[in-house]
């Protein structure tokens, strides 16, 4: 659906080159919600604008449904853009016009007959749950409602693709959740392909199927949400995951370990899929001369799959512990935790 092939974007600034996007390869499938996450300045905003050519690439190819937009004539590009909806962090609504006019705007500029516009506006406003706000002005709406107007406006032309530029970054956590659920519904009911960029791992975890992590214009890691959470490779990815999974052992617990002179046998155990439900530790306690002390843990769900991390301390003789560890490692991934490093 959307393919980035070795795409780069270079800005000249005071004679210096700035590589905002640097050799990016991403392939987004139809009907998928693809997330691009990165800190500000990572190049993700530029990346999403390359799709509808709000930014011209300096190198590489971007194919949208197999078509290279940079080869289109200006009218051809405008026509193509009508098939790519876009929503923004700050909504970008016309302040001087009603919700109704804002939502109708893409059809107005396409010269759609008024009757048709009216029916279609009612349809999309109903979909986003704003039927009663049609005659209000953007400044009378809350942030979440404004973003719903943005989504309705993006959907009105029945696009194939929806680009989301930090669409939830200006919203509070509750509203963020409801907008993300709405985006999911958009995908499920219209089979849209969604490319969303964000710096919030929470948003990615909530709705994305796959994700790419960007840093300094490069994609440093990409894969399914599940792969990324269960087995992050790059430190930045780990950072992002830590922002939603409390994987650091709280200091109070750490100092507790040190006080008891322990900390030699503290492990981080990562459970995925059905293994999260297996009573591994009670089996360990039963079959080996080892006691299991759970220090800290979190179990959550990713894409409907259980996913958890436990930090445990194994107490017992070294030889038994090695045997027990061996057993645990057969089913789940285990990582030793340094007492001072957490």
């Amino acid at each position, binding site marked *: 659906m959307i393919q980035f092939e070795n795409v780069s974007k270079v800005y000249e600034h005071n004679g210096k080159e700035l590589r905002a996007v640097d050799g990016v390869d991403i392939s987004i499938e139809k009907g998928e919600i693809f997330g691009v996450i990165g800190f500000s300045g990572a190049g993700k905003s530029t990346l999403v604008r390359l799709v*509808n050519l*709000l930014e011209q690439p300096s190198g590489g190819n971007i194919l949208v449904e197999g078509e290279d937009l940079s080869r289109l004539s200006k009218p051809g*590009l*405008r*026509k*193509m*853009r*009508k098939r*790519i909806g*876009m929503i*923004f962090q*700050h909504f*970008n*609504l*016309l*302040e*001087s*016009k*009603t919700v109704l006019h804002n939502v109708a*705007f*893409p059809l*107005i*500029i*396409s010269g759609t007959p008024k009757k048709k516009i009216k029916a279609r506006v009612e349809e999309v406003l109903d979909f986003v749950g704003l039927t009663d706000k049609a005659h209000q*002005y953007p400044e009378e709406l809350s942030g979440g409602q404004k973003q719903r107007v943005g989504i309705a*406006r993006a959907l009105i*032309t029945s696009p194939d693709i929806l*680009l989301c530029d930090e669409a939830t970054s200006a919203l509070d956590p509750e509203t963020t959740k409801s907008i993300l659920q709405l985006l999911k519904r958009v995908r499920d009911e219209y089979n849209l392909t969604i490319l969303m960029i964000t710096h919030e791992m929470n948003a990615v975890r909530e709705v994305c199927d796959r994700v790419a992590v960007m840093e300094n214009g490069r994609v440093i890691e990409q894969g399914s949400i599940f792969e990324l959470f269960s087995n992050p490779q790059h430190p930045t990815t780990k950072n992002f995951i830590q922002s939603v999974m409390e994987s650091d052992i709280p200091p109070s617990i750490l100092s507790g370990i040190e006080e008891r002179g322990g900390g030699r046998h503290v492990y981080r155990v990562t459970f995925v899929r059905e293994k999260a439900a297996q009573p591994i530790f009670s089996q360990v306690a039963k079959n080996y001369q080892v006691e299991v002390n759970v220090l800290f843990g979190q179990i959550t769900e990713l894409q409907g799959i259980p996913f958890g991390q436990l930090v445990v301390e194994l107490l017992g003789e070294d030889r038994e512990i090695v045997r027990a560890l061996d057993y645990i490692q057969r089913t789940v991934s285990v990582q030793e935790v340094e007492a001072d490093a957490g």
Partner: protein
Amino acid sequence: MQVNILEFWPRILQAINETLIMVGVSLVVAALIGIPLGIALVVTRQGGLLQNNAFFKGLSVVINFFRSIPFIILLVAILPLTRFLVGTSIGTAAAVVPLVLFSGPYIARLVESSLLEVKPGVVEAAEAMGASPWQIILRVYVPEALSSIVLNLTIATIGLVGASAMAGFVGGGGLGDLAIAYGYQRFETDIMIVTVLLLVLIVQIVQTLGNVLSKKMRRQ
């Protein structure tokens, strides 16, 4: 020698009429020139919809040139042009030419600043929807900036009221002419006071109307 205000009243009414015509006609013509130039300044600048550095710089220099000439000098300097355009260099019609040259570039700058207040994000959103540059100008820039444009045109109108007073110099008539001819040169203080009060009144009305209209334009 004092003149009776009541006897003089028809002369005052005529002057009000001349002032309103001078200001009204100049405003319309100047706006017709200034608004498109203001739009051109915004869309041709660096990063604009129809970026054109040479055009932008050229236009900017020309506008600055006209804006730097004091009105009283402009009034005299362009007398030949005025004669060419309206066939005469004196009278109300003749005063319109320098007034337009004075306020057209001014309105261009005012409109430019109004349009620059439009959030770039809204323009970008329209581009992303596949709007053409013309559609963006007419359906995004102008409606979004209209409230501010109206307020700025009010400022320009009041500037014109002031400038039109000087146009009495070329026999343009109007309240300013009356104040100078009778009040200043013939020391008829009461005429002076009445004309100045009338100018104050006109400015108050224009500003109030401008405020009301601008507020209306915030929600279309």
